């Protein structure tokens, strides 16, 4: 297959993915580490490399509102944000999924204040897991570009009509450079036809959109939204398959298993840290230790079937959370644990919370986690939620 590789950052890769997807309207407000994406897009629009309108609005609240407005007349739309900006959109995020507007956004994962931090973790998007958006987490710049294109096809599918958030780790992915293959426009056009929806305002069929519900019908709206989210699981599979056939890159649908075939102990994680875990898995495998990685790609809809399937085959599962739901545990862990609890087998589990506010998760950290999982199984240790590489005194 012919490739056209250029050396760009994750933010630029996202901008390329957006350009190729031909949105009609882009509305965004700048925030580190998303800024390069919106700067590139505004350049592309002004230089005439893209047909869409670019609106550099005055806040994120306006950005999500403008994209909903555009989507309501049947336009394809894009927005991008991060951290504080994503949270400032929160009202609109719920409104958008409830309105069934398939807006696509990029979120540069970044910590949430206070304390103020521009560096990465997953506390921004995970705290918005319940806002009704499909959430995917990518591992590198190529996947970021490819997932923007896939996102439109998934979100706009008639059985889904649900907005989608493509998450990439702030700085680690947004600002590092990689060789990224830029697909041909013609091929993207064939893969991603123009957006068609019956759910739009037009002169021919005027509609009232965004009105109130009563207690007798609100639950039915939410039921349908939930069904649409489940429908996305099949659509994600089909779209990934079609993408692989067209572009030669496959992302393994909801999750990707890495060396899990005969694994005894597995770490589960999202995003760029999966790259580091792969290296540690290879090293420990070479030493004869049966370890593996489960990269969760989609947090919503949640890959329950895949987690259960893996749990049936292994002795221990550790979950890395770059977030914490204060007073309980990491959010990825809560979700994984809920899936595991539905199988008829005991699996030793542990939650590793860390990498907050940009702290590196090192190979040594990961190796230690694998070792703790092995010893946890052997010693039948108590399962726990543990903050790793912590510099303060703890009670243990």
């Amino acid at each position, binding site marked *: 297959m012919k490739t056209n590789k250029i050396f760009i950052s994750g933010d630029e890769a996202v901008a390329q993915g957006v350009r190729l997807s031909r949105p009609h309207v882009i509305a965004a407000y700048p925030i580190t580490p998303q*800024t390069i994406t*919106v*700067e590139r897009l505004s*350049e592309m629009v*002004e*230089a005439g490399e893209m047909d869409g309108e670019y609106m*550099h609005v*005055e806040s994120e609240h306006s950005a999500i509102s403008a994209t909903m407005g555009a989507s309501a007349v049947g336009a394809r739309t894009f927005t991008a944000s991060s951290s*504080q900006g994503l949270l400032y959109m929160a009202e609109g995020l719920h409104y958008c999924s409830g309105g069934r507007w398939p807006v696509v956004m990029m979120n540069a994962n970044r910590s949430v204040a206070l304390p*103020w931090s521009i560096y990465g973790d997953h506390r921004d998007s995970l705290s918005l897991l319940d806002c009704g958006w499909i959430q995917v987490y990518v591992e590198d710049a190529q996947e970021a570009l490819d997932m923007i294109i896939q996102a439109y096809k998934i979100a706009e599918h008639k059985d889904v009509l649900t907005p989608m958030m493509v998450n990439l780790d702030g700085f680690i992915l947004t600002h590092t450079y990689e060789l990224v293959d830029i697909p041909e426009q013609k091929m993207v056009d064939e893969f991603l036809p123009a957006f068609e929806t019956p759910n739009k305002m037009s002169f021919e069929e005027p509609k009232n959109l965004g009105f109130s519900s009563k207690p007798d019908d609100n639950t039915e709206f939410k039921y349908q939204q939930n069904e649409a989210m489940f429908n996305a699981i099949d659509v994600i599979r089909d779209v990934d398959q079609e993408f692989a056939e067209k572009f030669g890159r496959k992302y393994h649908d909801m999750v990707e298993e890495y060396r899990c075939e005969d694994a005894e102990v597995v770490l589960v994680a999202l995003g760029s840290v999966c790259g580091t875990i792969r290296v540690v898995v290879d090293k420990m495998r070479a030493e004869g230790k049966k370890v593996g990685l489960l990269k969760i790609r989609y947090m919503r809809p949640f890959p329950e079937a895949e987690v259960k399937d893996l749990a049936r085959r292994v002795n221990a599962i550790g979950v890395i959370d770059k977030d914490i739901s204060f007073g309980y545990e990491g959010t990825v862990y809560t979700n994984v644990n809920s899936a595991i609890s539905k199988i008829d087998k005991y699996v030793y589990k542990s939650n590793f919370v860390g990498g907050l506010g940009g702290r590196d998760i090192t190979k040594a950290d990961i190796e230690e986690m694998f070792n703790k999982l092995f010893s946890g199984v052997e010693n039948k240790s108590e399962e726990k939620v543990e903050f790793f590489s912590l510099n303060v005194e703890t009670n243990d």
Partner: protein
Amino acid sequence: MNHNEVHPMDRLIRADRMPHIWCPGCGLGTNFTCFLEALNQSGLDPDKNVIVSGIGCTGRVPGYTNIDSYHTTHGRAIPFATGLKLANPELTVTVFSGDGDLFAIGGNHFIHAARRNIDLKIICVNNFNYGMTGGQFGCTTPLGAKTTTSPYGNYEHPFNLVQMAAASGAVYVARWTSLHVRRLTNSIKETFAKKGFTFIEIISPCPVSFGRRNKLGEGLDEMKYYQENSVIKHGIDPNEADLNLNGKIIVGKFIDIDKPTFLDNQPKLQTPD
């Protein structure tokens, strides 16, 4: 160099936070010093002074000021300061923030606090762009100016901030540049002594994010530009003081009136016997 030398403003600076983050040639250091100097000269008790910002390069000012200081979320300095002032009316509360913070994402709060005449001292550093995030255009960027999100020139009309402040109800409205050190300091001092919602706009060089793309030269060149192109016109209608990329900069004190503040007008709470 004499290492025992202390900065004349030492007691008002958090030296442990130095070096600061500002770029060479940035106007913020000068603007900051004018604020400290005004505080110093005013004779006010620093313990009864508070400084609040939102987010941005300008938003770093409170972090370097050795009085009670708050760095709030982007755009929310005014509501945060309103809370402070209402809970403890004894305090002199200054909001020191950027044009984007106060007028783009936070614009709504500005007009409402001015309308209510909340007793806040607003100082806005207008560098015509979002400096901190790398120089995107905002609501003050002049027509035609080049920024990272308007590479071929901005085509949105900007606000005239002094006009907006006056129209929204501010009791004191002035504009200076970073070059007008003495006049700016005096103006800040005047607002400390004034009751009600006051507004000072400081036109300030941002050579690294804005100046570079618009061929305005180094920080010093921008200062020279201010020297050659500022026109002092006290008392004129702020309507006539709009700014453009290569034009004259009208500075001066435009509004200075008296009217009851929010707290003055509030019916006294009835305390039961």
